[in-house]
């Protein structure tokens, strides 16, 4: 290491160019280093975010510059049963799917925290649903939910004889809603399990030893050690999960496109249908903006989760 540093020093002493000195000037270097990232994020994230909020207050359509119409879009949405339907399903979808993902994911993480052969191979296999493009696995689910040739119906009807007719997964509102939630849970389990597993591995075994000496049962060890120690990481993972489940688009668009009779629209798919497919950019933007209060709520949740983590671990660990 010192040899290379010395030789470069020698090279520099021979030809001290103004360019080298400029790039060694710290404020200039900071600006140059931050410019690409900040530039990209400003042009393609901050500006569109502001533009989206502005569009929500206009009557822009594709090909026509809109004028400011105040709260008209939002007033219209409040009277629109489809929007209320989408809000309702978005909340149900997020609530049920998050609960399912975390219950099953936490369980899977606890299972993976044991020791058995081929553990790393198993961990690798389990992440697969999360790696594969969502739309493509959603297509597999669409095929699994096929009204005529569903493999689940085949199992229940022809193999187990539990039912006499095929299940109509996607043909009527409530079964379609729960089929989508099941697909979302399936896709979400790996992420939750693997990130919670990382959290579980940081809990010191000496805590469990102390609790066992005091005669704590397995449930008590989980309730009073594992769960409180996992709170901070649970809060963060859950915030991510809630944000990306609430704004989910791909699964619903790929499997039902909001049908049957618009019963499975999430706010994002409704925004796409009105904004891009229907051309009503202003109204679509208003639907998208109506998701923001929920996201702010979730972010605050994350912030307090982080704050709590700092407090638990002391100031030294940042």
């Amino acid at each position: 290491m010192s040899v290379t540093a010395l030789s470069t020093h020698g090279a520099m002493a021979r030809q001290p160019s103004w360019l080298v000195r400029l790039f060694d000037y710290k404020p200039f270097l900071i600006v140059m280093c931050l410019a690409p990232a900040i530039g990209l994020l400003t042009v393609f994230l901050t500006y569109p975010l502001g533009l989206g909020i502005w569009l929500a207050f206009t009557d822009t359509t594709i090909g026509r510059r809109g004028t400011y119409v105040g709260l008209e879009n939002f007033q219209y949405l409040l009277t629109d049963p489809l929007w209320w339907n989408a809000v309702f399903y978005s909340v149900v979808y997020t609530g049920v799917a998050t609960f399912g993902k975390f219950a099953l994911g936490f369980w899977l993480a606890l299972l993976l925290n044991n020791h058995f052969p081929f553990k790393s191979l198993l961990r690798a296999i389990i992440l697969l649903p999360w790696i594969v493009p969502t739309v493509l696995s959603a297509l597999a689910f669409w095929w699994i939910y096929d009204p005529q040739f569903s493999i689940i119906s085949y199992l229940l009807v022809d193999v187990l004889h539990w039912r006499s007719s095929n299940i109509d997964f996607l043909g009527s509102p409530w079964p379609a809603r729960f089929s989508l939630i099941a697909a979302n849970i399936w896709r979400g389990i790996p992420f939750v399990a693997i990130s919670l597993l990382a959290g579980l591995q940081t809990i010191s075994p000496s805590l469990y030893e102390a609790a066992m000496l005091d005669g704590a049962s397995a449930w008590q060890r989980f309730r009073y050690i594992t769960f409180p120690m996992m709170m901070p990481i649970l809060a963060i993972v859950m915030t991510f999960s809630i944000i990306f489940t609430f704004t989910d688009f791909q699964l619903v668009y790929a499997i039902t496109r909001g049908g049957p009779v618009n019963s499975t629209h999430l706010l994002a798919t409704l925004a796409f249908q009105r904004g891009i497919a229907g051309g009503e950019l202003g109204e679509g933007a208003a639907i998208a903006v109506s998701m923001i209060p929920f996201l702010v709520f979730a972010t605050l949740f994350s912030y307090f989760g982080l704050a709590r983590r700092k407090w638990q671990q002391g100031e030294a660990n940042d």
Partner: protein
Amino acid sequence: MTDTVAQPTADAKAAPDTMAWDSGLRRLMMIYLPLGCFVLILLFPFYWMAITSFKPNAELMNYKDNNPFWISSPTLAHIKHLLFNTAYPRWLTTTMLVAVGSTTLSLIASTLAAYAIERLRFRGSPYVGLGIYLAYLVPPSILFIPLATVVVQFGLFDSPLALILVYPTFLVPFCTWLLIGYFKSIPYELEECALVDGATRLQILRRITLPLAVPGLISAGIFSFTLSWNEFIYALAFIQSGANKTVPVAILTELVTGDVYQWGALMAGSLLGSLPVAIFYSLFVDYYVSSLTGAVKE
């Protein structure tokens, strides 16, 4: 606390011995059985996808005479149809181009940003870091409508370049956070030594920090590649013509035609579209796991 955090694997190994409360049967019921169910359910859709893509149509639509869980006469017809009768190879190359382009762009941008925030420490650098973290919390679903108008303004509508430029909005925040964490783990003393020896900041970045951060860069790179390969909503909203579509969008919009779904071809397309990331994943599993957990812990 900090001591135990530093060596979690060693401690975790000791844990089961101290908690040896379970007999063999109980272990089977409590651990292996549920684990088996999880693996079965998590993998079944892929098995179903794979088996469907090699089944002839007659077998696909007839469960009475064939066992649906197996193929009696496998065929490559669906894959052949996909490769020679559709623009599938074209979609694959477009997706590859977009994924590689946006990954490169965001790796460069986020390495520089992470270096500036973590190592060039200036007043307000934690706030810049926080701002970039917040950018990660803005989901594409609320951005795609205004972004579509921005893309049209720039004259990039229907061009893969639009995707290359837009994907960094979710890749840069992620990679920056990952790399900040990584740079933190490199001892600052190494850089101080080089500074004392008279190296410039850029030389330090190029010759000391970056070589030491290679595992972090690989993690960020493969993660970005996967995320951009899988991206759907922007590609759906910004690309119109069939030839420029990415694989996930093209399969859904170009292969789903009419009322009778070509399940064989659809599943073959899904399988082929998943393979590149799956292969990539199998080569770099450890990096995936570490970046996933690292990003959460940061």
